[in-house]
């Protein structure tokens, strides 16, 4: 049994976008702050009550709100952030969809929105409009009115399916 006292720090390992990182954190440090402190500042904080989803990352294959996990709890996890989505400078189809369909304005919700879309399309490669809207219901956007985000995810879905089918 490992016991870390309140005034102590604990060392953790995270695999982020395919690369290993080590960090030393207080037990109370939130994963979102740990990720940002490690340089992944595309992960955003939009609220303090787990509603907005701006901090969404993929952890061990599942989308999670990194503001509602402790960094120590994520020890050993495999994490994908927005920074890890493009390959050799080429945009991921979801990133391309958001550009083509004007699915962003201020861009603050965009990294979380794209990571949730990534999870949604992995679970359900052919979502209906209704399924897309339900699938991103944990991600708030104040700029777009969502319509073009839905279009962007449809664009990505079609592009990703035409590649794999």
């Amino acid at each position, binding site marked *: 049994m490992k*016991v870390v006292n309140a005034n102590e720090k604990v060392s953790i390992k995270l695999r982020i976008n395919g690369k290993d990182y080590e960090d030393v954190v207080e*037990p109370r440090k939130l994963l979102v702050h740990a990720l940002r402190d490690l340089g992944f500042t595309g992960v955003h904080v939009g609220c303090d009550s*787990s509603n907005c989803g701006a901090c969404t990352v993929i952890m061990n294959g599942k989308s999670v709100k990194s503001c509602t996990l*402790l960094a120590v709890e994520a020890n050993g996890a495999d994490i994908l952030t927005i920074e890890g989505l493009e390959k050799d400078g080429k945009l991921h189809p979801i990133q391309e969809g958001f550009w083509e369909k004007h699915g962003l304005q201020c861009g603050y919700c965009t990294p979380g929105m794209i990571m949730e879309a990534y999870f949604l399309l992995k679970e359900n490669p052919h979502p209906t409009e209704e399924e897309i809207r339900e699938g991103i219901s*944990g991600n708030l956007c104040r700029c777009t009115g969502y319509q073009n985000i839905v279009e962007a995810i449809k664009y990505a879905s079609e592009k990703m399916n035409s590649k794999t089918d």
Partner: protein
Amino acid sequence: MYPPKFGYVIPENIHEAMEFLESHDDSRPLAGGHSLIPMLKLRIIRPSYLVELKTLKDLQGIKKGSEYRIGALTTHYEISKSGIPLLSQTASVIADPQVRNMGTIGGSISNADPLSDYPAPLIATNAKVVVISKRGERSVPFDQFQKDMFTTDLSQGELVKEVVVPAMDGYRTDYEKLERKAGDYAIVGVAVAIKEEEGVVKDVRIGLTAVNNKAMRAKSSEEILMNNALSDDLISKAASAAVEYANPSSDIRGSAEYKKKMVKVMTERALKKVRK
């Protein structure tokens, strides 16, 4: 946003976890963390230690025999995908996708938020909660497990090990959730399970959530329907009778009066959906 300081414990097995929880006043177990961490961030609670549960094998997995035995750490996502009558449908409308990827059934019922979704199907199906501690295991009917809002039958050092739900073979089921927006808590939640033979109701269970301190069975609605055919008239009568089991409070989700009326509406919808 920033939790207060606390210690953190990573146990090797469930015995170490229970031992630590029992001997450390104010220590709290950490499951999915999607009620506990938000409370820490608002500093509503100040536990001495959090005890991590995620690796404990005794609390994981779903076993199906004549009933479903659902490990406490099973997530809403996993339950929503596992085809359990009534419970899977309920799990699929809890909060939003990210929350369902982390939140667990053990955590949800141990937190005992009066607005949470699971209590409606759990009370309707006469589910049981298996509680484990250093002294062994005990099985508690869900109705006795939920004592009051945010208050359960758990003592210090005890954990929910699994939730046992009957297979409900031959029943048709539905969970109707009234919400302001996708991802919110229920304004009113109604779970229905019904068994018919030759067009006559042979068994019916109606569970209500979000309109009392804890979930309730609408017994007189059930009695109205028993041994009768599900006509529109009878459904409407039974749905009206469910209102007497609702004692909601007025809050940002609506007035008590509105919520009572919605108990009738949602019960009627649920009963019409399960009618053949």
